[in-house]
C-alpha cells in the first residue's frame, strides 16, 4: 500500500511537471509566430482585405523568376461574384507555396531534391537532384507544385530566393503589389513587420489541421466565409 502511494505521488508529480512544461511551451507560441527552426524563418502575410485581384504579382513573379506560360508559381484565385449589381463583390486569395515547416513535399521526395533551407526556412527544390517522379506534386495539400517545362524539375515559389532575395530585394510579388497586401519578413524576429501584422490582425493559415505548419498567413476578408 505504501508503495502504491509512493507511485501515486511520483505520478502526480510527473503530471504536474509535464503539464507545467507544456503550458510554458504553449504560452511561448502566442501571437508572435517564432519557432526555433534555423536562423531565419521567412514567412508572408497575404491581406485579403487589401488585395484587389489585379494580378500584378503574378506577372511580376513570372518575369522575375522566368516562369513560362502555362505554369505559375503564384496565382490569385477569385471567388464567385457575391451580391447584386451594383453591390457585387469578390474575395481574392493567394495560391502559392506555403513554405511549410513540416512540408509533405519534403517528406515524400525520394531523392531529397525537395528540401527546407535551414538558414531561411524556405522550401526549395534542388533541380539537379529531382528525377521528376511527381510524388511531391501529389503530396502537396495546397496543390501549388508543377513541372517546369524547361528544367523538367518540380518547381514552385521559393520567395524569389535565387532572384530578388539574393539581390537584397523583397520578393517580386511584394514589390509589385499596389495595395501593400503582402508583407514578407522573418518570423523569428519578434520585432519584424510581419510579426506586427500577424499580431494585429485576425490571421489564419490554410489546412493547418494537416500538421503542415505553413508560413503563409492570410488576413481574413471581412466578407463571407473563410475558406481555408
Amino acid at each position, binding site marked *: 500500500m505504501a508503495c502504491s502511494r509512493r507511485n501515486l505521488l511520483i505520478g502526480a508529480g510527473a503530471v504536474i511537471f509535464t503539464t507545467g512544461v507544456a503550458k510554458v511551451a504553449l504560452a511561448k507560441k502566442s501571437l508572435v509566430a517564432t519557432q526555433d527552426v534555423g536562423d531565419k524563418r521567412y514567412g508572408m502575410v497575404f491581406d485579403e482585405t487589401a488585395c484587389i485581384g489585379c494580378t500584378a504579382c503574378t506577372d511580376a513573379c513570372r518575369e522575375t523568376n522566368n516562369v513560362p506560360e502555362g505554369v505559375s508559381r503564384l496565382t490569385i484565385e477569385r471567388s464567385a461574384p457575391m451580391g447584386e449589381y451594383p453591390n457585387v463583390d469578390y474575395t481574392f486569395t493567394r495560391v502559392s507555396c506555403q513554405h511549410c515547416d513540416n512540408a*509533405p513535399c*519534403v*517528406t*515524400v*521526395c*525520394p*531523392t*531529397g*531534391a525537395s528540401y527546407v533551407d535551414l538558414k531561411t526556412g524556405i522550401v526549395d527544390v534542388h533541380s539537379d*537532384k*529531382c*528525377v*521528376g*517522379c*511527381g*510524388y511531391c*506534386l*501529389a*503530396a*502537396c*495539400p495546397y*496543390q501549388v507544385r508543377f*513541372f517546369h517545362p524547361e528544367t*523538367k*524539375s518540380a518547381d514552385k515559389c521559393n520567395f524569389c530566393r535565387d532572384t530578388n532575395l539574393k539581390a537584397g530585394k523583397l520578393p517580386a510579388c511584394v514589390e509589385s503589389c499596389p495595395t501593400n497586401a503582402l508583407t514578407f519578413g522573418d518570423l523569428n524576429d519578434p520585432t519584424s513587420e510581419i510579426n506586427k501584422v500577424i499580431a494585429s490582425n485576425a490571421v489564419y493559415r490554410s*489546412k493547418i489541421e*494537416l500538421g*503542415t505548419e505553413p508560413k503563409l498567413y492570410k488576413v481574413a476578408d471581412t466578407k463571407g466565409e473563410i475558406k481555408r
Partner: protein
Amino acid sequence: MNTFVSAFTFDSLVWDWIIAIYLFLTGMSAGMVLISIHLKRKVIEGKASANGIIKATAILAPLGIISGLTILIFHLTKPLAFWKILIYFNTSSVMSMGVILFQVYMIILFTWIAIMFKDELANLLQKLFKGRLAFVNPIVDKLAKLENAVELLLALLAIMLAAYTGFLLSALKTYPMLNNPVLPVLFIFSSVSSGAAACLMLGIVGFKESFHSKSVQWIHSIERPVVVFELFVLLTFFTGLIFGGGQNEVAAMAAIGGGFWATWFWYGVVGAGMLVPLALNFFVPTQAQHNKAFVLLVTSLSLVGVLMLRTFILYAGQMTVV
C-alpha cells in the same frame, strides 16, 4: 466522349494510368510469388520446377516487376536521371523505401528462381555460354542451402511490396480517399487475387497444368475467400470515408456516388471483376469449368477487374483534394 476526357484529365491529377498499370503489375508479381511460395512449401509434392504454376510465376513475376519499373522510369520527367533515385535516398519517403524494397525483392526473387530451377539454369548456361559462366552454378548451389530462409524472406518482401503500392498512395495527405489506412490492406488482397488469376491463366493455358492438380485446386480454394474479403475491405474502405465526414465523405461520394468513375467501379471493378467471376465459378458446373476457354475467361475478368480497381483508386482518389 466529353465525360470520358474529363474523367481522365482534371486539375488535381498528377499520376495517370501508367502508374495504375505499374501498380497492377507490381501487385500481380507480389501476388504470384506469395501463392507460389505457399504451393511450393505446402502443396506441391516432388519437384517444384516441374509445376506449371511455378513456371508461370518464374516467368510472369520478374517480367511483371521489370516491365512495371521500366514504364515507371519512362514516366519520370527525366527518365535518364532515374539512377539518382538509387543513389540518393530519403528515409521519410515511402517511395525511397520502396525503391530499396524493389531492389532487394528483385535480387531475392531471382535467387529464389535460380535455386528452384538450378538444373535448368545449369543446362541453359551450358548451352548459351559453353561453360564460360560455369562459376554461377556453385554459387547457386551454395545459395540453395539457404532456400528456406530465401523463401521466407521473399514471402515477407512480397507482402511488403503488395502493401507498398498502397502505402505509396496512402502517404498522400492531399487526397482524402487515398490517405486511407485500409488502402495497403486492400492492395494486398487485390494483389493476391490478381496473382491467383495470373497463375491460373499462364499455368493452365500456357504450361498445361492439369485442372485436377493439387496446386490448381488450392488456388481455386483461395480464390473465393480472397474476392469476398476484398469486397469486405472495399466496403470498409468506403464506409470509413463516408463515416469520416467532411472531405472524406465528399471524396467517397464523388468516387462511387455517380459519374464516370462510379460506373467504372460498380460495373467494371465490382461487377465484371469480382461478382461475375464469383458467379461463374459458383453456377457453372465443375465439368464445364475444366476448359481452357473458361479459365481464360474467368482469369482475364479477374485481371481486368484488378487493373480497373487500381485505375479507379488512382483516378477517383485524385479527384477530391482535402
